[in-house]
């Protein structure tokens, strides 16, 4: 049953990816700028010193002299065969470049996710069961502030405090958790806190609202009446049923985090996919931008699928149709 559902969802993925690939392919070419010139332009102002023949040769070599639909079909044909092409700047395979960067994005996303959940779920639950108390107001102030605060600003403030003033944590950089978990945590702490806050802010509100809703339900009143301990009533009954909405938020946010947090990765000099994408756009490195966006789109779709399956587990009444 679940398997058939998954297969059908995967098939639905095809038109989505075709549309995304077409959109990114056209959009990246709609930005003014000539990648051949960028490849040869040394600095923004350096005048291109190559001859017309050299220019044409290079243009031909990277296939940009063909009509745009031929370029697309060639690219799509390669993608189907698992070949994402070569980067214009470094002439290395896109697949290799992206997957070199992907672990960094993944580790940061998971850390940020944990930070976000660890903050948001208890805060939301406490705010709900202590509704209209100072605790509730504090949690809601955090949530409102977190939503309103620009992430780059928070990032810079944290760097100023923890790196410059206190000197506790490094301002920038990365270490693989597989090689040096402690160093990874030191480096990931600030970016994860920023991204976690961003995630926790709306999540706290959702958890609180859903909890309030559930706490008013008859089955909760029954649970209290039959003398269940508070922990059982809140965690086992009310919280589990409140999580449906939270899972949606977490799912969408996870997809976003996995797509690479472009700004945060830039501010913290984190070697992830987000920074790769930004650099690729500036350099007009078409294959990199196309490959990265396609990958991000796939991640989105997959995460949504996982979220749907997760619904079923949380609430067996939901039918996967």
């Amino acid at each position, binding site marked *: 049953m679940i398997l058939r559902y998954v297969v059908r969802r995967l098939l639905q993925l095809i038109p989505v990816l075709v549309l995304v690939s077409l959109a990114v392919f056209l959009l990246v070419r709609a930005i003014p700028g000539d*990648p051949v010139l960028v490849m040869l332009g040394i600095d*923004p102002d*350096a*005048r291109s010193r*190559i001859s017309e023949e050299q220019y044409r040769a290079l243009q031909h070599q990277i296939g940009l002299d063909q009509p745009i639909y031929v370029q697309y079909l060639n690219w799509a044909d390669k993608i189907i065969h698992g070949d994402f092409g070569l980067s214009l700047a470094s002439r290395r395979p896109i697949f290799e470049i992206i997957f070199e*960067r992907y672990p*960094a994005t993944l580790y940061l996303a998971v850390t940020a996710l944990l930070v976000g959940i660890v903050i948001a779920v208890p805060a939301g639950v406490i705010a709900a069961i202590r509704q209209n108390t100072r605790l509730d107001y504090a949690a809601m102030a955090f949530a409102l502030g977190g939503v309103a605060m620009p992430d780059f600003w928070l990032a810079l403030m944290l760097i100023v405090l923890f790196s*410059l003033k206190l*000197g506790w944590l490094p301002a920038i950089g990365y270490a693989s958790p597989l090689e040096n978990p402690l160093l990874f945590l030191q480096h990931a702490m600030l970016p994860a806190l920023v991204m976690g806050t961003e995630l926790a802010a709306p999540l706290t509100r959702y958890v609180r609202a859903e909890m309030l809703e559930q706490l008013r339900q008859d089955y909760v009143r029954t649970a209290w009446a039959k003398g269940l301990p508070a922990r059982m009533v809140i965690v086992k009954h009310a919280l589990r049923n409140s999580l449906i909405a939270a899972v949606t938020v977490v799912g969408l946010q996870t997809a976003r985090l996995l797509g690479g947090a472009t700004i945060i990765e830039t501010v913290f000099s984190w070697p992830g996919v987000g920074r790769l994408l930004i*650099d690729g756009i500036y350099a007009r490195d078409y294959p990199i931008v196309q490959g990265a966006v396609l990958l991000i789109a796939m991640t989105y779709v997959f995460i949504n699928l996982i979220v749907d399956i997760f619904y079923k587990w949380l609430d067996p009444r939901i039918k996967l149709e």
Partner: protein
Amino acid sequence: MKRLLTLALIFGSLVINPPLEAASPQPKRGGTITLAVSKELALMNPLVNTSSTESRIRELMFEPLLGRDTKGAIQPRLAESWEVSKDGKLYTFHLRKGVKFHNGKEMTAEDIKFAIDYTLNPKNGAYGLADLEAVEKVEAVDKYTLKISLKKINPLFLTVLTDIRAFSAIPKESLPEGMRKPSTFPPGTGPFKFVEWKPGQRVVFERFGDYWGDKAFVDRVVMREIGDATVRFTALQSGDVDIIERTPYEWVQQIIEGKIKGIGFAKASIAGARNLEFNVVDQPFNNKKLRLAIAHALDKQEIMQAAYFGLAETADQRFPKGSIWYFDVPTPKYDLNKARALLKESGYNGETLELMGNRGEVAEVEGAAIQAQLKKIGVKVELKILERASALEARRQGKFMFKLAGGSDFPDPLPAYEEYACEPDPKNRRLNEAGYCDKEYDALIRKAEVEVDLEKRKALFKQVVAKWLDDSPNISLGFTPRFFTFRDHVKGFTTNTSGDFQPFSGGLSRAWIDK
């Protein structure tokens, strides 16, 4: 007596050494220097790559045949001596003996021949192709003798061989033909050798113990890419890195004022230049009087002050005052009355002029200053700030009225003024983005291209510059410095006026750590 002697010693040392020298002890060996660079390494091919980070790496790992000292004179480097034939077309180089590549092999004439041939093969897309195109044939006479024959006389040939971007020595057969990516750097002969590259994280280099010249003091150099200048400076302040390149001027200003402590800087005084260039092919700037009106209306001092915190100097020509290539010729000076008169003669009818600039530079500030200054003579200017790649395309196709532009410094006046020689297609401009084309100017440039005698060259370029200023397809605004900043424990680090490391002036091979 003893006290007197001590006093004499102290006094003597003060007189002999400037205070700075007296404070710096002997260089120490060892340690790691982490340098934050603004761009990511893309390609591990020293003969092809072009970004600023790749240039920094080239200066650590590789060497050209010749060097240029701080005064601009050509010095031996990998070639110990050289002779030029009477007709000026045959160069014989005698290579330094015992120079080791990082793989332990000795450098020979065959290796140099390979590197030049590789550069000359159009399939390889090497950066130096345009510079070395005068080369007809390279011949390895014996292990240490190399003969290079030129197609025609080239007064710039030796200067080109000092430019590491145009040529670096690599072992024979160390790069495959065609534009394929090498999986590692080929070995060089420079003071540092390559260790590893973790994309997005770091590039690591190690001191080369068998270097033929002055060996480096530090054991390791780590390069980290931090694209954003503010983040780069923050990383320096927090101690995550030791040196950063391209420090924003406002931070340098604060260091000078003593507001930021524990950080020093090295200034590359003429690393860049700023200018205002007209599209002389199309309306409205095909009108010389309008160009000159603008030239007379600009207060360069004010523009430079506004955009560079007083750290930059104004310019009239492509070389600074004091250079042998600066000439005493009539120059349009700031004079509003003259500007107004010229404007009237030009027939300017109050139309809005579009000034193009690159995003992410100081063009916004410069542009605003120019806008305000031109308003004084009644010229309306609208700023059009474009993103790098878009601006590049517009410049090439001549789709602009006038533009703020930059450039690097020039080793010789020929490339500096050759840019304004006629080009065949005004819709596809290569060097001559102004689209300027004048027969007299062209003839002078053609003569200069084959003149090797210094005095005759000076006389020729004096005429070139006079003509260039008279027609003003371009107005030099100023020279802009670039700053490396570093933490106090980094000693001995210097840069040359262009912002390269360069062995004659210091850089990372002369830097050491005091802590």
